[in-house]
């Protein structure tokens, strides 16, 4: 049976894999705040570097994640281009720099400030992506469920995530089987031979039996869960959640410090609104 290779169902061997689910979820939550709170290069760049190192340290299966990386980078570049098209002078507010590098028409101009602002924006989005990717690759769905519960979400939410991951491969197997039988009956799924709209219609034909059989399964699953006492108490423990180890304690210190820093940064920003700092580094170059 196919396994989802980006998401591991069993705990991996590397340093980050071995951290407990709670540590991973907390660290990730703090880092997301960290990356979103500013446009400051000295804040974003170190995280970007660390997240790339983390991804490499997780020894990923490059062939599986490559398409995802290409896709996300492509989308983000597209986003930046559209952002520029919508307002070619968008960098002015942040950098105060108006030096024109290229001018295609009166409207479509590239200024140094805009180029700088958009590059940082791109870096920020890529950092958010690479951090998320490292998080997703390092955590198993059961650890995620345990981690979510430990940071205060109701455990039923975590269980939904877990159950979803459990049955996605089963449903995709059902889909394949149904597709096979429909193809034998003359359904054309070959992209070259049918128009997109026709294909969409034919996909619907496959979906009907898939939904019917999945509903049958849902009933069975919920019975199985009831019979083993799911929802019995207010709290629930997790088999997959390792007790806190030395590395978890070190990381606890790290994410607490980062969280404190974020709090300071955001609160001080409210008290004395700060001028976006990115221009300083621009002037230094």
């Amino acid at each position, binding site marked *: 049976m196919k396994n989802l290779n980006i998401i591991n169902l069993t705990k991996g061997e590397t340093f980050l894999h071995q951290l407990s689910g709670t540590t991973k979820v907390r660290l990730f939550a703090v880092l997301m705040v960290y990356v979103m709170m500013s446009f400051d290069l000295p804040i974003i760049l170190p995280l970007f570097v660390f997240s790339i190192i983390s991804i490499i340290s997780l020894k990923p299966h490059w062939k599986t994640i490559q398409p995802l990386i290409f896709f996300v980078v492509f989308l983000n570049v597209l986003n930046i281009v559209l952002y520029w098209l919508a307002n070619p002078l968008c960098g002015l507010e942040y950098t105060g720099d108006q030096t024109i590098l290229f001018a295609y028409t009166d409207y479509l101009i590239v200024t140094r400030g805009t180029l700088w602002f958009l590059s940082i924006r791109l870096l920020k989005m890529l950092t958010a992506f690479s951090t998320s990717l490292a998080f997703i690759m390092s955590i198993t769905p059961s650890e995620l469920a345990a981690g979510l519960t430990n940071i205060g979400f109701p455990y039923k939410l975590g269980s939904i995530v877990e159950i979803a991951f459990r049955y996605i491969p089963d449903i995709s197997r059902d889909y394949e089987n149904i597709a096979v*039988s429909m193809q034998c009956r003359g359904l054309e799924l070959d992209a070259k031979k049918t128009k997109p709209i026709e294909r969409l219609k034919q996909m619907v034909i496959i979906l009907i039996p898939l939904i019917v059989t999945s509903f049958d399964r849902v009933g069975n699953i919920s019975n199985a869960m009831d019979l083993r006492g799911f929802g019995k108490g207010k709290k629930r423990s997790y088999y997959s959640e390792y007790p806190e180890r030395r590395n978890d304690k070190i990381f606890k210190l790290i994410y607490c410090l980062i969280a404190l820093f974020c709090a300071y940064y955001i609160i001080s920003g409210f008290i004395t609104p700060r001028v976006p700092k990115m221009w300083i580094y621009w002037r230094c170059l």
Partner: protein
Amino acid sequence: MSKSPIVEFKDFTFKYKSQLEPTLKNINLTIYEGEKVLILGPSGCGKSTLANCINGLIPFSYPGEIHGSCKIAGNETSHSSIFSLSSVVGTVLQDSDAQFVGLSVGGDIAYALENDNMPREEMLPRVLNSATLVGMQEFLEHVPYNLSGGQKQRVSLAGIMHEHVKILLFDEPLAALDPQMGNQAIDLIDKIQKNNNCTVIIIEHRLEDVLYRPVDRIILLEDGQIIADMKPNELLCSNIIVEKGIREPLYLQALKMAGCNVTIDDNPSNIFDIKLDKYKEKLVSYYSNVDTSKPYKEKKVVLNVKNVDFSYDKNKALDNVSFSINKGDKIAVIGKNGAGKSTMAKLICGILRPDKGEVHLEGVNYLNYSIKELGQKIGYVMQNPNQMLVKDIIKDEVSLGLVLNNKSEEEIEKNIEEALKKCDLWPMRNWPVSVVSYGQKKRVTIASILAMNPEIIILDEPTAGQDYRVYTEIMSFLEKLNKDFGITILFITHDMHLAIEYTDRAIVFADGKCIGDDSVFKILSDNDIIERASLKQTSLYSLATRLGINPESFIESFIVSERRKRHEKS
């Protein structure tokens, strides 16, 4: 030794909220501590409902009207909760796939403990302990997708054994297992009952397979009522099981056919214990006089598979497979899950194409046909009819394949009328698909394939999970199609009864190789093949060995005379 009752039904009646008639009527049943009870009955007799009353799903998940009383370990179920019941009753559901809610073997076994909010350190030794009981201790880190049905079932069993449950309830434990695994499961249940001294309730309709290990009592249900509550030996000697549509063990069928009147004293509940001395002569003389010669029929090859190899990525799924199929054949394709049966079926249908080797359809290399064209020559019927049914109305469902193939309107009309008539569905052609029974749904899917006028029909486990009545309905219908219209049929199955009763030839797969291709009786008397394909010896084989006669000719004689008898009846 006086035993205390653990399950007590008194004048118990239950009606589902959505139904007009009660499903269980006036049940009076007492099961004592430490007993092993088989609840037997055809589909729809209420045996699953009875199980759900014991484990608390009724009334917890399925509301309805209850009259009378049902006490489990002294507590009235309608006053207790499903959670308190689940610490007394452990249930293993029929669908071991759906029951596997954890993401790893260890996680699934720990599921009930997690819900009890037990600290992890306490959980670990218990999980290991339960896993060891069912022999899964090596697999704790495994994900469910690579486990066999039998292994998943063991995990489910381990997952309910923490709380020192008093009752183990098995809902159709054999439905999803191949024959050898089925035996292992029954054996494991027996061992655990002996070790833990708990009460075991098995719900099944496969009488012979459950009796592989002794049970104390058999309770027969029909239409929501208990119609028999007897010891296995008594039940087997009465005629009640045959009348109520339960399949009799094969060896008893063989004995009865030879005119032997088996009595309770002969201990008929197990093939190895039954006293045969006084019947030996009768049996031997009856079966040696069966005329097994067959009228010569000229055979025309329709499909020829030659030296075919196929691999998924790097895993070889088919390895140098060759066989041929003649027009009008009824063939059983057998082997355990993952042996290459389904890959072979997909390959014949053209969904997959061979890496090496050739497939010829009526002499033409089938690479010349597209999947669509092949679909009109070779039909594939899936195991679960719900996975095939797309349209609301029977007629539309049957015409779907023809519409997709852009046939003319007259041709469609003509073909579906023919197909519906062949399947006895013509009067029902305007009925909605959702209201018909399982057996009828199966017929609809077969009709929708027949409408395309295929040369060969491949049926994947046509009777899986069905009771003897539906099984007989589906199989005799298929037999008629084969006999009256000369349609070639391939059954992918691991049901040995099906192979014996309805097919002439068996092709056996193991590890991607075709390890046997011969008459059913020859395959079933070949120990080596049976072992490699994870099949099991039929009780006919054991009977022949005990009588000291040649199993091959005995099974052949049995098959011939059984069919003759069936045809006389119909």
